[in-house]
């Protein structure tokens, strides 16, 4: 939701400080999720600047952490995908009467293979993420327990069969989501 438009905007425009933004995005790709979790924890904890929102140990906190983890990945890969489209094509699209927005949308559509890769990579990253969601979600049964944190808990409790079963479910979910994305990509080709 945030990564694609930002990545597209950075990839399609030239502005002062663009190199710095690119550097930040690339660096963000390597952000350790557990550090993101720690920072979000501190921001949302009672003494933190957003403590009054009471989001800590709620799904909202987990969404915030995962968005921060996925954002640079999606934005940087979208930017690369957009930059991979022949720049001359943009001029040719404009010469056919496209507005700036239509040109941007057309180039984004041309970059859809790279875009799908960005979304798949980010999805794979967050679905398998455990450190941040554990920290900010608290692994509360029925509320903030997700597959990865449930696997950690089951393993700690020695319930290896359950942990393995949950692991297979996680894998199947990832497989299903990626297959759906690839199918979508194929349909637009």
């Amino acid at each position, binding site marked *: 939701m945030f990564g694609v438009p930002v990545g597209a905007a950075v990839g399609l425009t030239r502005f002062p400080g663009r190199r710095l933004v690119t550097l930040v995005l690339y660096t963000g790709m390597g952000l350790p999720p557990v550090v993101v979790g720690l920072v979000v924890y501190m921001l949302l904890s009672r003494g933190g600047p957003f403590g009054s929102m009471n989001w800590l140990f709620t799904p909202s906190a987990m969404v915030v952490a995962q968005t921060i983890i996925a954002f640079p990945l999606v934005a940087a890969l979208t930017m690369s995908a957009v930059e991979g489209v022949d720049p*001359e094509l943009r*001029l*040719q699209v404009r*010469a*056919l*009467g*496209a*507005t700036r927005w239509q040109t941007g949308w057309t180039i984004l*559509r041309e970059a859809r293979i790279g875009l799908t890769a960005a979304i798949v990579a980010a999805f794979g990253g967050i679905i398998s993420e455990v450190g941040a969601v554990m920290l900010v979600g608290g692994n509360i049964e029925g509320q903030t327990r997700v597959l990865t944190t449930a696997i950690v808990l089951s393993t700690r409790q020695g319930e290896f069969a359950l942990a393995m079963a949950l692991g297979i479910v996680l894998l199947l979910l990832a497989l299903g989501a990626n297959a759906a994305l690839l199918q979508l990509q194929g349909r637009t080709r």
Partner: protein
Amino acid sequence: MSAGPPPAFELVDVRHRYGARTVLSIPRLWIPHGETFGIVGPSGAGKSTLLRILQGLEPPSEGAILVDGAPMPHPVPLALARRITTVFQRPLMLDRSVRDNVLFGLRVRGRKDRAPAGPLLERLGLDHLASTRARQLSGGEIQRVALARAMAIEPEVLLLDEPAANLDPANVARVEAFIRDAQSRGTTIVLVTHNTHEARRLAHRTLLLIEGAVVETGPTAAFFESPTEPRTRAFLAGELVY
């Protein structure tokens, strides 16, 4: 210039530079409405740069481009930009069908009908490829699709950059017939070509551009039959001019 309606394009003291290098220097040039203006010259003469400037894709470093007597602003307003289109020397296809490529200019103008693609493709001998992915076409086919794509929007001004390069004689004839149709509809055409024969067949006036500078310009018949400049004679004779 005699009094009358303002020309489609008028260039006044236009200079264009890439870095320190001046690639175009045209003190004065005008192209009346409905005229086909041929631009010939060797590679690197600045022909394609001139087309980009006329399309409004980049402003000249110095000087003014007047369209219908009024300076062309930058960024070019959409209404003005949509009156002009270019068939580029290396046309690029969108990753969609040939038909969708041809209809692209209409789609961005909000037109949803598919009908205009058929006759255009048929005239260029491409109707059997309408549903084919455009990027699977040969270079010659892509060149013709690019022409159909430009003509679909019925531009007032058509800028053609080597529209028949790499085409076999039958397809050159098709493309030239297509261009003549546009001429008969009153389209203003700027035709950049290496092919002096093509300029001779299609252009009302012709200009020789060498190293960004105008060497000679005049009515096509006079330009080819009695050029006044030694460099024009040398260029037309196929001799190396620099």
